[in-house]
């Protein structure tokens, strides 16, 4: 408003223009929301892609196959995974991704969402279904609503590591599986905190057993599975902090074997992509 007043009171029109334009210019250095979009035909079936392109502060990466998507998700961090395509195929692919990346937000853009079994399946897997058989305007506002939910969440968490923590380290030197194995073997009780660009997560140990794990909205084994995949970030251990909540009931060895097997399956999905690059 102040800039508009100045527009009418200043005498020099060039100065006014410059000031007004300065007022209007936006800060483009803010964090972008990163989307990974799986679309088998992104050149000719690009309605939603064009809408995403027009959104400010949104960075999109497009892949054509599921194996490419898994390959990239293993290496990079995305706020949202979007699957486009024929309803059954798209929900199937989204379900597959949900199994391997439990904390990732997944949205399915399908022609119609009337099919009850499809809706049920999507609901069970916590996949958001968005119908594309509507006007551009309606679709744009739906997609904008979905993307805007992530704008406030973006950002790198603070380090906050205290030098008196009993164990501090880097996940690119020791994986979560290795340090948890070591702590469980030595019957530790306390809290592990993992910090990475994906966010913060905590795992509570009690006499060498994983008692509770939390990451974002995930709790229990899902959160443990997520932390297993992290290859970047820092961790520290605080001795003696015990969780009142118990969300993990299985022994550590079972968790370890299950999660390593799951990780192998995820890597297998990318094998087609890998052979491409060799």
């Amino acid at each position, binding site marked *: 408003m102040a800039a508009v007043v100045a527009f009418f009171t200043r005498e020099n*029109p060039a100065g006014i*223009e*410059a000031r*007004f*334009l*300065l007022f*209007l*210019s*936006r800060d*483009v250095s803010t964090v972008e929301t990163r989307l990974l979009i799986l679309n088998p035909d*992104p*050149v*000719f079936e*690009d309605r939603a*892609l*064009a809408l995403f*392109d*027009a*959104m*400010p502060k949104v960075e*999109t990466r*497009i892949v*054509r196959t599921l194996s490419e998507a898994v390959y990239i998700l293993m290496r990079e961090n995305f706020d949202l995974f979007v699957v486009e395509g024929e309803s059954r195929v798209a929900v199937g692919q989204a379900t597959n991704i949900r199994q391997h990346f439990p904390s990732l937000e997944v949205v399915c853009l399908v022609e119609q969402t009337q099919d009850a079994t499809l809706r049920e399946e999507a609901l069970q897997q916590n996949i958001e279904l968005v119908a594309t058989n509507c006007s551009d305007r309606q679709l744009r506002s739906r997609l904008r609503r979905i993307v805007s939910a992530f704008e406030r969440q973006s950002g790198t968490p603070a380090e906050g590591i205290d030098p008196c923590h009993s164990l501090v380290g880097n996940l690119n030197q020791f994986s979560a599986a290795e340090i948890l194995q070591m702590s469980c073997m030595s019957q530790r009780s306390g809290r592990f905190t993992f910090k990475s660009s994906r966010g913060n997560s905590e795992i509570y140990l009690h006499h060498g057993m994983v008692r509770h794990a939390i990451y974002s909205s995930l709790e229990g084994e899902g959160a443990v599975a997520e932390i297993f995949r992290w290859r970047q970030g820092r961790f520290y251990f605080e001795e003696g902090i015990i969780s009142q909540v118990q969300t993990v009931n299985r022994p550590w060895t079972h968790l370890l074997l299950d999660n390593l097997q799951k990780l192998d399956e995820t890597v297998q999905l990318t094998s*087609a992509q890998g*052979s*491409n*690059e*060799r």
Partner: protein
Amino acid sequence: MRDSTLETQIRLLTLEVENWKKLHDFITYALDKSKPIISADQERQFTEIRALLLQESEHVFSQVDLVTELSGKTMNVLQRATSIRGVRELSAEETRRLEADWNGVFTRIGVVQGQLKGRRRDLLGRSFLSMSLARLFGRKAA
């Protein structure tokens, strides 16, 4: 401010470059005689990339006014490289031509992609109103 046409052009060129690079990976593999025997799966992936390039190149180039310049070279590459095995069996002269044509297309797409990204960066610093005002005052926006 974001220009939807510009964004579409950048997206299409990025996809084209990706496929063009994948094709190069296969050609390089084929030309390396020390690599092991070519599998049916590799041939299938190669055909997949080739099919995508065949159906999309013309459309992508028409969006960025490069059809006349690049269409011929692209077709030369795609017609010579019929399969990985076929590339391995090309004569030295044909291989040289294949690589020259591939490089010609890749270089031109890369240059245009850079130009479009530069234009996008310029536009991002401006708002729609500032652009309109700049047009009104007949000067470039700050």
